[in-house]
């Protein structure tokens, strides 16, 4: 006659699931509404030159490659520097320790914007002229390296003391212990924050445009925007590109994090 009665636990669980589903749906609807409102604003109350946008979007998009290129090179440099600085910070050899803390202190004590100008504008005064891209990568890499060294140091310190001891008891040298036992475990802790740093880097790379030598997204946007006095439109296009890049990178970052969380800890 009637179906088999569901147990109390099942009913409660289903209610919980329903609630969570409802929340997610409502959030999605609200997002869509906010986005729709933005689009509406630029199509009605705020006058924008859509003909200009169509015309200059491909030109600005041409900078995406450069933005990526700078970010990848800079993050590579930053990881190498961060690793060295973190090892220096944990070193018992005074000059190495001093060099590391000096570097981190100097870079963290001055603005990134200033550092970028230093490499473009101040160095030529000393007769050192770096190619535009190279100077930008150097500035961003040095800056992010200093901040990331803290992430690495925390990762290395978070590896249990017992791990080092059992490696030493097996007869491993300090170098072998670091390479084979400590660093692989430390990197695992450091990978999610490194992903965040890379995402920030793609946006901070826009600062490099200020020097006018690297033709990435921001440089192109300000150039066409100023030329035709369509700054609003140009910046909207650039913002859209940055946002989409960030969304894509965040998606992969989340997947990486879930995979690491699932892995054998």
């Amino acid at each position, binding site marked *: 006659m009637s179906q088999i009665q569901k147990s109390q636990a099942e009913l409660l669980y289903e209610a919980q699931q329903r609630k969570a589903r409802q929340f997610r749906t409502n959030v999605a609807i609200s997002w869509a509404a906010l986005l729709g409102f933005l689009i509406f604003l630029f199509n009605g109350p705020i006058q924008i030159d859509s003909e200009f946008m169509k015309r200059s979007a491909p030109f600005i998009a041409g900078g995406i490659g450069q933005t990526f290129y700078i970010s990848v090179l800079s993050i590579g440099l930053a990881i190498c520097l961060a690793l060295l600085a973190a090892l220096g910070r944990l070193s018992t050899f005074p000059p190495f320790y001093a060099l590391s803390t000096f570097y981190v202190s100097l870079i963290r004590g001055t603005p990134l914007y200033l550092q970028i100008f230093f490499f473009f504008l101040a160095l030529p005064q000393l007769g050192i002229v770096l190619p535009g891209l190279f100077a930008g990568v150097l500035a961003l890499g040095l800056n992010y390296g200093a901040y990331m060294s803290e992430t690495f140091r925390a990762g290395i310190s978070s590896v*249990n003391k*017992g*791990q080092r*001891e*059992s*490696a*030493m*008891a*097996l*007869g*491993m*040298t300090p170098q*072998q212990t670091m390479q*084979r*036992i400590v660093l*692989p*475990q430390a990197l*695992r802790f450091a990978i999610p924050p490194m992903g965040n740093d890379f995402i920030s880097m793609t946006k901070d790379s826009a600062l490099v445009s200020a020097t006018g030598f690297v033709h990435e997204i921001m440089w192109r946007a300000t150039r066409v925007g100023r030329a035709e006095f369509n700054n609003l439109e140009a910046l909207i296009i650039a913002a859209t590109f940055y946002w989409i890049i960030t969304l894509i990178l965040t998606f992969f970052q989340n997947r990486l994090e879930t995979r690491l969380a699932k892995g*054998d*800890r």
Partner: protein
Amino acid sequence: MMPIIQISNLDKYFGRLQVLKKISVEVAPREVVCIIGRSGSGKSTLLRCINFLEEPSFGTIEVDGIKVEAGEKGKGHRQLVHDIRLKTGMVFQEFNLFPHMSVIENVIEGPVTVKGMNRAKAIELAEENLDSVGLLFKKDEYPNRLSGGQKQRVAIARALSMEPKVMLFDEPTSALDPELIGEVLNVMKKVAKEGMTMLVVTHEMGFAREVADRVLVMADGEIIEDAKPSMLFTQPKDPRTKALIDRYRTGER
């Protein structure tokens, strides 16, 4: 017979606190020596001084003919410490398996990285040792999938794969659930039977009584009694030993 471990006049300070006071002790080859004592008596520190996980402040340590003076520095000293570590295997209270390596990788790590042993040969040796602790079937698992008792048995196999002359056990069952202690003690008994020289810091009085050739009792950084278990557990000389044994007997730790 020549002792395989010879500790003479060993002092150890932590800051201003003296935790080992003029310790002198010898261990013969194939001997199983248990070290008991209340926490803070210096028993773990003594064990960790033997392979220089703790640097002794004064005194000498000799293991299988390799003699190291405390407090020396430099390359020669480091080489001697390395040589001593090759002669000693250690098992820790917290297992300390490498979590990023599978069981078999844990066990071959020492032979391959430290001794430069050929990988195939190291795997053969590791499988032999894993088999003898009864965990060959877990060789491809990662440590986080093992129980505490299984982890400790892998840790024993890992130490044995370096083919040490002496095994040091630092409270090997203290971090285990009571029902898992037996499997680890059984493996240790097996290792003892095969003729390994063993130093065991432990709270397991049953194990000390049954397996040990000698029991050292430590208190306040000194060895207050050194006797065969049959003597020690029936006729303790020092009142502190008697108090210690009585505490275990009433089940209080």
